Each structure stands twice: as structure tokens, then as C-alpha cells.
């Protein structure tokens, strides 16, 4: 006989009911928290991770201006900029999915570890649902990896290395900017037309991911049209004075110098090359030429008159006369008093593309965003018809071949577009050897 009301069976029953009761709410909440930083209030936070200090701080500052402009336009402020010309009409100027867009910023310092730390802090502390920005391929690849692990979307800023959407591609990462292969594919025919098939090139290359892939791409494209490569010389990043690397070019037999440098390195190496009279030199009965495959207006300003007549490629230029470019230049120019750089353009596009993908997919879930972006064809963002390829998350669009102006009329009017290379000419197979290795993997919603 037992006086106790507590039986073994009763205890089991009670425990099971209590357990189910306790677990019940988490069934619903786990649905609500299906992905990292699901915005639950009336706002959504984006994380702008740009170099605010370090050698690319000027590019970073221009990126931030464009982000602020994009946020203003998304929230219905200003003149709407490229929202008015964008082919997709999912965005209504009321934020994203009705949530007001807010943002936090981080400083990448153009260092991979600092960039990862600032991205991590924006995701974990500030609840950023998407990370975007940057001005270096090393940084982009590092932050893209972090975003993949954390389960947020990464919309890359300035990153030109083949590896970003090649061997280091990730399912959560997307690149609007063009890459080294595309620069080479666009430049080679122009160089052939200008300088002929019988040329010998000498490469000076920044010794990191971007430099290597650009050197490989340019050498392959020029060799395919008959050029020879005399030498490929790697230079340390931030070498300062490049004269000791320029001097051997004089007697190498080369008649073209390819500078695979960016930012301050490009400014210094180009200035040194011009000082050493390379541009006035005759080799093999031909004028010596210099090529800077990746150009930016901010760099051209640093190199001053030395850029005159030198060819390169760029993702976008403010002098383009299509409606979208004009709308963007007008918005940006009215707000800040000068035309936007290609860095500003690409990050503005990335912000709009992200917002649009959320709106079309109806969710901030990274997997929904990725699905909406994959294979997305659009127009009206300044580059003509563009495809976000599903296989590698790379945008395919026209590439601009530009030349340094001989007689610039202002400090912004430094480059002129000599050719718009159609997207078809710069498109490559997703399994192209230069992009081989690595896999997108599956999208990670985190949480």
C-alpha cells in the first residue's frame, strides 16, 4: 500500500507533458530564427565594412558616401537615383520589405584580420543581416569566408582577383565588380589593334592574390594573340620607390610594360616608369608602351599627368551617358559636389541588388536572397544588361577600356572611355582553369 500520490507512471506522464510544453515555444521560435539576425522590429541593419584607415581610405570614404546615398534612396529619400532606372521594380522606396534601412560601419584597415573582426562585430553585436564593402581581394576573400560561416550574405565591394569568385567562391558571397580575366579579355583586342601582334611584355606584379591572377590573365590573353612575355617580376606590396624594378626593364628587350599594381603602388611605379623615360623610348623599332590593366580615377589623380595616353580597364566611369549612369552621377554629384568613383558605383549597385533580392524573395533569409540573385538578369544600373551567374556568383556585364586623358579639363576628368567591350566577349565558362578549385557549397542561413 502506498499513501503517495506520486506514482512512477504519473511522474513519467507529467514529465512528458511538461517537456512537450517547454519544447513547444521553441518549435515556433526556431522557425522565427531560421537564419542569423532575422530583423524582427521595424528596421533592418546592413553592415558597411570599408577601409576607413590605411592606404585605401579614400576608396573607402567614397564607398561610404555611396552606401549612405543608397540607404537614403531605399528609404524613399533624395531623388531615387538608379532606383528609377533599375529594371526590377520590386523596391518601393519604403525601406526593404517595409522595414526602414539602418546601417553600421566597420573599418577593414585593408587588413584581413581587422576586416574579419569588424565584420564579426557588426554581425554579432549590431545584428547586421548583410555585410558589404572592401577595397582589396585579400580582404574580400577573408570576409566572404567569415560571412559564409556566420550565415549572412556578403556583397563584395572592390575586388578584382579571379579567386574571389574562383577558387575561393562561397555560396553566401556575390561580386558585382569585374575581375582580372575580364580585364584581360577586354584589353587584349584593344592592345592588339593599337600596338600590333609582335610585342614583348614585361610584367611588374604586386605580390599577392590579386596581382598573381591579373598577371596570369593578362599574360595568357596577350600571349594568345602572339605577344611574348619577357619577364614576370613580383614586387613587394608598398615598395615605395620602384626605380630598382623599373631599371632592368630598360635592357630587357621588352617594348611593353604591364603594371599589375593598384593604389599607391600603381601611382609610384607608373611615376617611376615615366621618370625613367620609358614612354619616350624606342625598342625593336617601336614606341615603348605602358599598360595599367586595372584603372581607377582616384589612382589616376595620384599619378597626375603620367597617366596621359595609358590604357587600362575599369568597371564603370562617371562619363557614361546611359540614363542609369546619368541618374547616379546626378544624385551623387548633387549630394557631394563631385562625380562618383567606380568604387562608389559598385557598392551602390550591390546595396540595391541585395535589397531587391530580399524584396523579390520576400525574406531576409540568406538562402532566399541567394536564390533570388542566382541567375538574375537586370539592367538600368549603369553597366547595361547584366547577369548574376548562378554557378559562381559573378556578375557578367560590359567592360570599359579606358585611356588617361591628354588634356583633362578638371581633376575628375582624367580617363576617357575608348571602348565598351560587350559582356559576351569577357564571359568564360564556370569551370575555366583560372577559376578552378573550390566550390560554392550550400548557402548557410546561420542561426
Amino acid at each position, binding site marked *: 500500500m502506498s499513501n503517495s500520490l506520486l506514482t512512477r507512471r504519473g511522474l513519467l506522464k507529467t514529465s512528458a507533458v511538461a517537456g512537450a510544453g517547454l519544447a513547444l515555444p521553441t518549435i515556433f521560435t526556431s522557425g522565427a530564427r531560421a537564419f542569423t539576425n532575422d530583423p524582427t522590429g521595424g528596421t533592418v541593419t546592413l553592415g558597411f565594412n570599408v577601409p576607413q*584607415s590605411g592606404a585605401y581610405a579614400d576608396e573607402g570614404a567614397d564607398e561610404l558616401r555611396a552606401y549612405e546615398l543608397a540607404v537614403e534612396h531605399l528609404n524613399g529619400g533624395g531623388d531615387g537615383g538608379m532606383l528609377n532606372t533599375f529594371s526590377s521594380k520590386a523596391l518601393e522606396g519604403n525601406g526593404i520589405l517595409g522595414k526602414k534601412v539602418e546601417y553600421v560601419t566597420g573599418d577593414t584597415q585593408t587588413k584581413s584580420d581587422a576586416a574579419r573582426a569588424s565584420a564579426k562585430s557588426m554581425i554579432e553585436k549590431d545584428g547586421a543581416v548583410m555585410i558589404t564593402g572592401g577595397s582589396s581581394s585579400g580582404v574580400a576573400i577573408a570576409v566572404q569566408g567569415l560571412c559564409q560561416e556566420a550565415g549572412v550574405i556578403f556583397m563584395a565591394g572592390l575586388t578584382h582577383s579571379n579567386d574571389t569568385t574562383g577558387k575561393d567562391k562561397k555560396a553566401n558571397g556575390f561580386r558585382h565588380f569585374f575581375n582580372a580575366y575580364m580585364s584581360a579579355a577586354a584589353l587584349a583586342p584593344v592592345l592588339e589593334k593599337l600596338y600590333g601582334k609582335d610585342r614583348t611584355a614585361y610584367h611588374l606584379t604586386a605580390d599577392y592574390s590579386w596581382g598573381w591572377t591579373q598577371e596570369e590573365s593578362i599574360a595568357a590573353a596577350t600571349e594568345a594573340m602572339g605577344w611574348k612575355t619577357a619577364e614576370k617580376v613580383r614586387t613587394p606590396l608598398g615598395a615605395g620607390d620602384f*626605380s630598382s624594378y623599373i631599371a632592368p626593364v*630598360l635592357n630587357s628587350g621588352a617594348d611593353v610594360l604591364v603594371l599589375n599594381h593598384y593604389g*599607391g603602388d600603381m601611382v*609610384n611605379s607608373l*611615376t617611376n616608369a615615366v621618370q625613367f623615360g620609358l614612354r619616350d623610348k624606342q625598342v625593336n623599332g617601336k614606341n615603348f608602351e605602358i599598360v595599367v590593366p586595372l584603372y581607377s580615377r582616384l589612382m589616376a*589623380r*595620384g599619378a597626375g599627368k603620367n597617366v596621359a595616353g595609358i590604357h587600362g580597364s575599369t568597371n564603370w566611369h562617371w562619363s557614361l551617358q546611359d540614363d542609369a549612369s546619368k541618374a547616379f552621377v546626378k544624385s551623387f554629384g548633387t549630394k557631394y559636389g563631385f562625380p562618383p568613383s567606380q568604387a562608389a558605383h559598385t557598392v551602390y549597385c550591390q546595396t540595391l541588388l541585395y535589397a531587391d533580392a530580399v524584396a523579390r524573395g520576400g525574406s531576409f533569409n540568406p538562402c532566399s536572397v541567394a536564390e533570388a540573385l542566382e541567375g538574375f538578369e537586370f539592367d538600368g544600373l549603369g553597366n547595361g544588361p547584366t547577369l548574376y551567374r548562378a554557378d559562381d556568383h559573378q556578375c557578367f556585364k560590359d567592360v570599359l577600356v579606358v585611356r588617361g586623358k591628354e588634356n583633362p579639363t578638371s581633376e575628375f576628368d582624367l580617363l576617357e572611355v575608348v571602348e565598351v567591350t560587350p559582356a559576351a566577349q569577357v564571359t568564360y565558362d564556370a569551370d575555366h582553369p583560372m577559376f578552378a578549385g573550390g566550390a560554392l557549397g550550400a548557402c548557410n542561413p546561420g542561426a
Partner: protein
Amino acid sequence: MDAILLQILNGLDKGSAYALIALGLTLIFGTLGVVNFAHGAIFMIGAFCAVTLSRLLSLSFETVDPTKTDFLGNPATIKTPYVEAWFGPEFGSAMIDWAVPLAIIFSIPVMIAVGFIMERGLIKHFYKRPHADQILVTFGLAIVLQEVIKYFYGANPISTPAPEVFKGSFDFGVMFGFDPNAIIYPYWRMVYFLFAAVVIGAVFSFLRFTTFGMVVRAGMADRETVGLLGIDIDRRFTIMFGLAAAVAGMAGVMYAPILSPNYHMGMDFLVLSFVVVVVGGMGSLPGAVAAGFLLGILESFASMNEVKSILPGIDQIVIYVVAIIILLTRPRGLMGKRGVMEE
């Protein structure tokens, strides 16, 4: 052979910059006993004196030209520099063209003032502190100075060209019977080398042949005894700090056309200049100059493809390898004196 000659020439201008910075560092170390990590920043500020003067001379007033439009389609504004309006277009544009050489005159008082403020305002409070404290405070000061410059001038390099007459290069090859264009050397780099030689000569003569210099040298040898003779050696040493700042500043001004100034150019030179000072021998002025040129030339040689194909990456470490070898064989450096930093 022509490649070797070319690299020797190449090393001379880099060596000139190292020598000028190292000379200033050694002067400060020899007189005040301070290891000044802010000296690279002074070089950088000198380069920005050239940028500043070039911008001051280019200050313009705007007039609206209704016949042209700007990038937004509004009537374009035409900028006319004040100097061209005041002195006539020809003389005005010549002044702007010669901004870098003119900046030498502009930089001397500015740099001496910067040197005085640094020494009186901050560094003098650290004379009796250990070297580690001095290094920390001057290194911090260097970071502050470069951030200040970045705030005002941005992070990208700023093109500061040499006057038009110095554009182009001189063909040494033809002089020595080589093919044309085999050994060419930019005019401005020749100017830089000659300028460095004159400045170094002037500093040595000043210390050698003036009473002031004699007292300073005596102070460097035995500060206490000179003080006991009733000479205010501290005041003279402060002046030497200003002089060292002016030397580094002028080196920076003249280097601006060679390397477009940016805010971290000082740091790039500082570390190498310290190696130069150590290799030359702490406290030895001739040692600093000799080591500056030696390491500049060696660095150029190491960048040659022939050398790099045997020893990949040697161009980035050659200076440190040489420093290690010299310090192992001659612990006091090339011309170091007994007793310096050995107590």
C-alpha cells in the same frame, strides 16, 4: 655591365634619402641621446610642405564660363590661380611649376618650428627616461602626425611633379660608349643626389668649422664637462634638433617628385633609416652617410632579376641580412665609437 652601372646610379638617390634621414637621426641621438622614431614623420611632413606650397600657389578664384558645362550640366566654373592674376600668366605658371624647389625655402622655417615644438613640447620630458620610453613616445608621436596629415590630405598619394625643365632623363650610356638608352637616369634624381651631397657637406662643415659646431661636438663627446664650463649645451642641442628636422624636411621636399607623397611614406623610410644608423655605427655621422649609400646601392642590386633568380625574395631582406652580418663582425657598426649605448 650596363645593368650594374644602372643599379649603382639607382642606389645613389635612394641612398641619398637614407643618408639624409640617418644623418638627422644620428645628430639627435648624438646630441640629445634620444632615439627619435618620429624622424620618419618629419621627412613625411617635409614632403607635404611641397604639396602644401604647390596647393597654396595653385589657390584659385572661380569665374563662371557659360559656354561650358560641368559634369552635372551646370555652367562650368573656370579656375584661375591668384598668382597668375597677380604676376601675369607666364610668371605665375612658372611659380606653380617650380613649387617643389621653392618649397625648400618654405620648408626650412616650418621644419625648424616643427622640430622646436616637438623637442620643447614633448621629447625633452623624456630625456632622463629609458630608451624604451623614448621609442614608445616618439613612435606614438609619429602615428599621431601621420594621422593628422591623412585627415587633411587624404590617404592616396598626391602627385607633386618636378619643374618641367627636369622632366626626362640623361643618357649616361652614350657618354661611356654604351648603346643609346641603355643607361639613362632621370634628371630630377641627379638633382636629388647633388642636393643631398650639398646638404651633407653643409652639415659637416657647420659642425667642423663653426664655433657653434665645435661646442656641439664637444657636447656630444662629454656633455657634463661642457656644461661645467658654463656653456648652455641644452639650448644648443635644441637648435640641433631643429637643424636635424630641417635636414629631414628638405630631404622630404625634394623626394616628393620621386615618390608621390602619402601619409605613411615616413614609416617606410624610418625603419630602414634606423638600420642605416645601426650599420653605420650609433652616433657616427660619417658612418650614417656611408651606410646610407651602401645600403641604398645594395638594395638596388638585390632587385636585379639575375640576383633574384638565384636568391628569390632577397630584394626584401637584403638590408637586414647585411645589418646582421655587419653587427656580427663589427658589433659597433661600420664607424661606431666605443661607449655609445654601451653603458
